[in-house]
């Protein structure tokens, strides 16, 4: 019976906009739409380079729209969380007046029967605009833009950055060796794997012998010793990013367990100040217990003499 693990990966991007897209986004806060000349064409929304020739385009933008013509459309009956509207809507290719190319955006109508190729649409503006494509809440049928009564007005400063956050939920099957290793760790046991061909013993979550190109199976499980040596390390000065909980410089070490061929990578330490970490320190696993399960807190010095082997530092994977 396979165990599935659910995880949510967030991608909170912040992007600089540059001279062309920045102008476009700034204009959105002013309820204006801009395009850029590229030869005989007017590209809207604007790009920095001519898609045909690769030439940089003159960043002298021209106003287009605000109304436009639907060149194609589709009906989204079940919106995803990332779609601009949380009720059924149309995606459309909209050629803004004065432009020769189409932009993708949502059209807010009640049902697909309200959509036709060639129909006229205009933007419905958000009251509070930040310089983001969704400052246009959606397009609506007709010639006239819709402006909310509580319009907050344009941005005080030119818009130079934009945020974009995606969030994807993954449901991933847990490989058998990882499940066995996880269950062993909950008992305070480090599980490893012995390649049946070359005899190398692997630590960590590897389910295969990369040297022999061989998948390992439960018969290859071995219990590992919990004493080894630090081969290499890094001291990390935390920068704040979403999900970062560390505030002070912290260490991650590579530990080569006795009799094992591959290091345990990126391990925390216990009772070992950053200044005392170096290649060759003998360490042992330090466990604590929570809710009846063992948790590896980190690797603590055993007090034994250092291992003096300059080649150890190369053992990083």
């Amino acid at each position, binding site marked *: 019976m*396979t165990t599935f693990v659910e*995880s949510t990966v967030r*991608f909170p*991007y912040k*992007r600089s*906009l540059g001279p062309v*897209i920045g102008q476009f*986004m700034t204009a959105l806060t002013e309820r204006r739409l801009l395009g850029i000349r590229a030869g005989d064409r007017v*590209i809207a*929304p604007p*790009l920095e380079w001519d*898609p045909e020739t690769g030439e940089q385009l003159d960043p002298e933008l021209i106003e287009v729209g605000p109304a436009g013509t639907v*060149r*194609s*459309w*589709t*009906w*989204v*009956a079940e*919106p*995803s*969380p*990332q*779609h*601009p509207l949380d009720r059924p809507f149309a*995606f*459309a*290719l909209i*050629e803004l007046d004065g432009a020769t*190319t*189409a*932009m*993708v*955006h*949502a059209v807010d109508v009640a049902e*697909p029967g309200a959509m036709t*190729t060639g129909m006229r649409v205009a933007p419905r503006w958000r009251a509070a605009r930040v310089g*983001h*494509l*969704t400052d246009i809440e959606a397009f609506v049928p007709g010639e006239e833009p819709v402006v909310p009564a509580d319009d907050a007005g344009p941005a005080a400063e030119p818009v130079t950055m*934009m945020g*974009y956050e*995606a*969030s*994807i*939920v*993954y*449901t*991933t*099957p847990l*490989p058998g060796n990882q499940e066995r290793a996880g269950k062993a760790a909950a008992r305070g046991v480090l599980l490893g794997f012995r390649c049946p061909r070359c005899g190398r013993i692997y630590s960590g979550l*590897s*389910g*295969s*012998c*990369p*040297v*022999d*190109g061989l*998948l390992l199976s439960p018969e290859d499980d071995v219990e590992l010793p919990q004493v080894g040596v630090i081969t290499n390390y890094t001291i990390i000065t935390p920068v704040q990013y979403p999900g970062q909980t560390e505030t002070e410089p912290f260490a991650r070490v590579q530990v080569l367990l006795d009799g094992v061929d591959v290091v345990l990578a990126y391990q925390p330490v216990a009772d070992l100040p950053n200044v005392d970490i170096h290649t060759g320190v003998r360490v042992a696993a330090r466990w604590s217990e929570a809710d009846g399960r063992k948790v590896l807190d980190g690797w603590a010095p055993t007090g034994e003499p250092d291992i003096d082997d300059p080649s150890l530092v190369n053992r990083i994977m």
Partner: protein
Amino acid sequence: MTTEPVAIVGWALTPMTRRTVNSEAELLFEVISGATEHAGITRADVDFSCAGSCDYVAGQAFSFVQNIDAVGAWPPKRDSHVEMDGAWALYEAWVRLQLGDIDVAIATGSGRSSTADPATVYPMEMDPYYLAPLGADVVSFAALQARILLDAGLVTERQMATVAARARGAAQGNPYAQVSGEFDVDALLEDDYVRNPLRRHDLPPITDGACAVVIARGDKARELTDHPVWITGFAHSAEPHHPGLRDLRVSASTTRAARAAGLDAAPVEVAELQTTFTHEEALLTTALGLGPEVAINPSGGPLAANPVMATGLTRVIEAARQVRDHGKQRVLAHATSGPCLQQNLVCVMEGTR
């Protein structure tokens, strides 16, 4: 550079399924073992490997690194990765063999689409300013292009349903296919739309799977097999990323790639096309200049199984199979990537007379 020809000498696919319990690395172990065995070599004989896969599909940064375990790291190998379908990995491997210093390469494609909703994954590959913030997903893009073709009279909904019924009928003979069976076109046309004008049958299934192809140079290929499938033309071409900038009634990059691959030099008997959506078949056959005498997707194509990142490389395998197992002389495989057929690859293969 050498002009010595390169041939496909072995391949393998996993069964294509809605949801696998295997990791991507495990899928690759299966196909790399299978493809090397098919070619009559071991992992140690492989000089270069190139993988096509996608971190956003896998949901893990640097997911391709652990996949290298499946190639076998000893003796040390030259390795590369493309964040593209495995067909582009094969292209890179083919280019690598042109350098003339190594003889054997393997290309893989792998993906597990089952692990997340593809509609939330796809926008991650879009323009981050104008497209991704709208959650612009692959099915919506396809539907926008389908309507343009319908409005232009280049395809009808009935023709689209006919493509689906033919593909899934053909897939009954394909042991690797995920969706197959006899379907009635009139019944299909009674279904509701998923993304108007696309119905369920116009869309590919969500598929997990992987495949691998072994290629070899000149005499090495002849030494390994009496039936090398020679790659006689190979090219790819891209168009602007934004669908709104392009004439979506045609596929200019497909035509350009086909010309560069020398498709016009002689007729082909079979074409395996990455028609992920039904309306794309009419568009692509026109872009490639294929007449009604050419058999399209006898494997069932992507409408029968769509392992994202392996779908294109599977087309190469299925076309090569037509040469090696069914006596065809000249075939083509097509792969695509990006919104509304943005980037297209054409591979022409021939048997030895």
